[in-house]
């Protein structure tokens, strides 16, 4: 009787894609189809509503602010890692190295609010990230005492100038997102009508760059990650040059945020341990602010200003990313094999 109930229960759990630490942790688990990863609970909230994520699965080692993965009956799950690299890496590692979820064929939808370079795009825009570059793994000195010819106080570790190359490899400096996955996700998103707000419109009108003054769009671009949430034109210029250098000129710096390279770095490590397929990660950003001031503003005032775009950015993030998640569920047999043509 107990055995029969346990068998039934495992079947029921498999159908719901959750597990109760089964006897065979690999065979008894149903594969998770998609895991949405946000930095903060605020960023995850619209996904929770959109995807009806009502099953909580606690996994030891997650952030105190978000101690359980939330899932639905379609085997779609979501997590808020906590802000910053340490929390993001600790949380994703806890999930990825756990035997509680089968993530070996899972698609990771990393979805963040980010700040955008006004020379590339504007607030409330959606960015499909091509490359994630770590801007924090670097040497730095204060920028007021720079040697002649240095444009910034940041330089590659063990290099002799900001334009030099580092002989040191951490392994998390640069991740290129699979182009086929980006293309498929963009195609599925289709012609999404992006939300905007009067406050965002008024704020961006103060910028002089045509890219900043335009209406929100969907674009492709590279992101820079750092715990150090920099702001201002000078560090923005540095981020542009840094991304250019680390991508060999193929990536255009577009957004900045605090967690992506930590998440992607842990996925790469977990992939090496056979726990996930790190090529199944896609990164979507929506711009809630600019990364630098407009012409009649200081960097500090820009950092502290309300750009009015947080609500539309959150809505656009989900609008752009959820068709991908829906298609993964609807056509799982195809997606399980790889990105469908």
């Amino acid at each position, binding site marked *: 009787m*107990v055995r029969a109930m346990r068998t039934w*229960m495992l079947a*029921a759990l498999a159908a*719901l894609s959750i597990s*109760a*630490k089964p006897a065979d942790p690999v065979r008894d688990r149903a594969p998770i189809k998609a895991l949405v990863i946000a930095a903060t609970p605020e960023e995850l909230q619209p996904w929770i509503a959109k995807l009806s994520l*009502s*099953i909580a699965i606690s996994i*030891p*080692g997650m*952030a*105190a602010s978000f101690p359980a993965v939330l899932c639905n009956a379609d085997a779609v799950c979501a997590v808020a890692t*906590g802000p*910053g*690299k*340490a*929390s993001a*890496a*600790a949380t994703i*590692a*806890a999930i990825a*190295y*756990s*035997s509680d979820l089968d993530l070996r064929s899972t698609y990771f939808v990393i979805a963040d609010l980010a700040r955008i370079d006004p020379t590339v795009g504007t607030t409330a825009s959606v960015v499909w990230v091509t490359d994630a570059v*770590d801007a*924090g*793994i*670097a*040497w*730095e*000195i*204060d*920028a*007021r*005492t*720079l*040697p002649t010819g240095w444009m*910034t*106080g940041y330089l590659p570790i063990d290099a002799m100038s900001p334009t030099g190359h580092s002989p040191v490899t*951490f*392994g*998390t400096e640069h991740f290129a997102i699979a182009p086929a996955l980006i293309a498929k996700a963009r195609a599925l998103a289709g012609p999404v009508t992006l939300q905007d707000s009067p406050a965002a419109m008024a704020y961006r009108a103060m910028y002089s760059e045509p890219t900043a003054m335009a209406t929100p769009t969907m674009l492709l671009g590279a992101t820079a990650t750092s*715990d*150090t*949430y*920099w*702001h*201002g*034109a*000078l*560090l923005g210029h540095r981020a542009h040059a840094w991304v250019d250098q680390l991508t060999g000129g193929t990536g255009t710096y577009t957004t900045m945020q605090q967690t992506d390279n*930590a998440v992607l770095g*842990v996925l790469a*490590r977990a992939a090496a*341990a*056979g726990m996930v397929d790190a090529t199944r990660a896609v990164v979507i950003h929506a711009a809630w602010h600019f990364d630098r001031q407009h012409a009649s503003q*200081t*960097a*500090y005032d820009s*950092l502290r200003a309300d750009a009015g775009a947080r609500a539309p950015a959150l809505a656009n993030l989900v609008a752009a990313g959820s068709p991908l998640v829906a298609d993964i569920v609807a056509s799982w047999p195809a997606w399980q094999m790889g990105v469908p043509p």
Partner: protein
Amino acid sequence: MKVILLALVAAACGSSPAPGTGNGGRAVKVMLIDMFNQEGTTVVGQFGLTDNMTVAGLTVHCNKRDICEVVTGMGYANAAASTTALVYSPDLDLTKTYVVIAGIAGVDPAMGTLGTAAWARYAVDFGYANEIDAREMPTGWPYGYFGIGTTGPSDPPPTDHEGTMFQLDEHLLQAALAASQGVALTDNATAAATRAHYPSAPANQPPTVTQCDVVSSDTWFAGGPLSQRAHDWTAAATGGAGHFCMSGQEDSATLEVLERGAEAGRLDFHRVALLRTASDFSAPYPGQTDADGLLGSLDAGGLQPSLQNLPLVAAPLVTEIVNDWAKWQDGAPGA
């Protein structure tokens, strides 16, 4: 439906022992955590860690006295990934393990010198912050870093962020200090020549074993203003009790994972010690520019003594723990 299922889940958990609850794996008395291979090499050599096991893709080096070592890889992401793999592995039982994080670092010349070994009471996160390039920051600011959600550098760190500061166990810290106080530290002529440029002690004196605190950031900062920020931020994050001396690139991430692991019952956070030895100065000597100090750090002679002093300073504590396990198995003596 959901309620019923959750009840059944709870019943199932009770009916079969969950794997990986810390009882089935290899019991470790001391786990040394290094960050890169050169640190690992000297530690593995010191303790004769020739018995290798593979844990979730990581190589863990052990010996028959239950001393083990792992290299996490550099930076926050690698440190967190490797430490997580270790903490939740069913192949290891860390519930009574003493963890010694042991790495090299930059040292504040006001607090130490090349080769100095510091046991930390506090580990403070430096990188999680706002930054404005110092050339366009508000007038009067000492540097461009300030806490997220705060108004400027004179504000204390935000209180709503996990991982701003960790405090290590005082009994274990005192035991580590006492055990290592008489260690003869390695030095070399190049390091001695570099020290001689500094006008005062402790920077211009031979290295010692000391107690002072660690800041971490993926960004390896150097120079006067950023060292000042490390000093100020450490003080602010610790209520004035902490004193910045060592800068590294992993400890806050490693400790975040260990703290969560302790909350999950996988280990005891009171058994975690943090040791950093100085490979370079975090600030230049008078007359030297920040850039020259940083660029010259690789040739300053500190790397070899820092690498060699790491296991030398850790050894007395590690040896005491394994030799006198009966005394240590229930916690650091005096705790």
